[in-house]
């Protein structure tokens, strides 16, 4: 196994893939659909917002380890954030996984494990699907999010 691939599939990611957190619908919350046409991954993000605060987040659907772990870690991380901070975190995560290999990596706590995706441009979309769908949910946008 090469170092690149070990950096991609870190234990945190493998663990969240095996046992995803918040893998559930949220009644009475907002939802948005995400779709990665390249691989057919389909994700529904559920969010409950109360007075500008993300009080609960969950996800459903099927996807690879990267997209499942990303959704799992995200739904844990955004809970308790106000909507503006959550939106800005989504933008910083986007930057983290799409910046060129070798450029500085912002420390986003546990989410920093996804920096390994930068060596796999095709897989960056997998990591981004949950976050882009989440951003649509908090903006209450109607259309399906696509990572193409």
């Amino acid at each position, binding site marked *: 196994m090469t170092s690149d691939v070990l950096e991609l599939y870190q234990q945190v990611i493998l663990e969240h893939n095996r046992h995803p957190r918040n893998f559930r619908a949220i009644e009475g919350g907002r939802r948005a659909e995400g779709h990665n046409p390249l691989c057919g991954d389909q994700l529904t993000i559920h969010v409950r917002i109360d007075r500008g605060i993300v009080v609960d987040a969950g996800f459903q659907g099927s996807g690879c380890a990267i997209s499942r772990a990303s959704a799992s870690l995200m739904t844990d991380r955004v809970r308790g954030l106000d909507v503006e901070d959550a939106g800005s975190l989504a933008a910083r995560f986007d930057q983290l996984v799409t910046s060129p290999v070798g450029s500085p990596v912002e420390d986003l706590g546990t989410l920093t494990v996804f920096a390994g995706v930068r*060596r796999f441009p095709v897989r960056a979309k997998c990591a981004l699907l949950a976050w882009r769908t989440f951003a649509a949910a908090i903006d209450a946008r109607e259309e399906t999010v696509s990572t193409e």
Partner: protein
Amino acid sequence: MEHPAREGRGGIAGIRRDFPLLDGRFAPHRAGVRGGDPALDGKPLVYLDNAATTQKPRVVIDRLSRFYLEENANVQRGVYALSERATAAYEHARTTVQRFVNAASPAGIVFVRGTTEAINLVAAAWGRAQLNAGDEVVVSEMEHHSNIVPWQIVCEEKRASLRVIPIDDAGDLRLDEYERLLTERTRLVSIVHVSNALGTVNPVREIVRIAHDRGIPVLVDGAQAVAHMRVDVQELGCDFYAFSGHKVYGPTGVGVLYGRPGILDALPPYQGGGGMIRSVTFDRTVYADAPQRFEAGTPDIGGVVALGCAVEYLEGVGFDEVASHEHELLAHATAMLSSVPGLRIIGDPGRRAAILPFVVEGVHPHDVGTLLDHEGVAVRAGHHCCQPLMKRLGLAATVRASLALYNTRDDIDALAAAVARAREMFA
């Protein structure tokens, strides 16, 4: 006429050496692959994505190059020797392909960009002339998107509809349902010869016979067939047969549409332009006969010439050799993969070509693909442009290993070992 396909003669043994990309050691540093992963350096490339495209033998690469070095001119119009030479090479490829699929005449061989364009050509030209409101076109549940979407486009335009032959759980066509689908409204059956996602070899001869009994023409998508078995369009009896050059050891960007005698001349043109006319005035244009009618504009002359060389190469190896080698490899692959814990092979069709789809418990196909890639094993992961089939199978995606004449037992063993390691990592 010289015979460019010297390599490959005498069967399968050592055939890998004919393919520069496979010969010797995979050197990602040199190739710039993934920033030059040192762990892969010196490992042989295990290429198992042949259903997507095959690698090219040196004779084909050299033929393409030689065309541009020594013969390049436009075809069918120059009065000078070089153009005549280019035209001769281009038309030689047509007669080579004619022999390759046993068409009755070279006029039945139209050069196009690939299978997709061949099907679009028939959908546009034949559909425009023959389809009316209420008519039906029959395809199957295992079709590639390229044998679904062109028909949807023309059906929508003509207010015709698409009917779909279902498959059974093994991945074979339901022929009983097929017969039931054929009615007086059916205008065409368009069916895949070998499924790119399952490997199923469909009983095309029988499918054609059943349609012809009712006077319905049949198009066959042969993209996954021509590299693996001898295709005889007259024996199959089909009206159209489409395939791509790059899946049969030729270059990308060229392909073939075969039309049975008489059928092409009855079709209106596909694209208008130079090379496809007999005479043009602003009042009236008279089209050329097939195949020129369907080859508007300057074709990919070098690509066509190299495609001719590729099929000569394959004929040189011999289909008996190819079939027995691939059959043996497929049996070995089936046994090896079946022994990997948690691995499930998808489908069990009555007859399978050298395509083996599978899923691994607990590991998404894309993760399998990435992990295999990092051991130098190239496979395809995804829906394989067959989303309706994936829905029928209840799968979002599969991993697909597809074989070619240059694959070896070592390739299969490397695949099985890498899949087993991927599963361990995710356990």
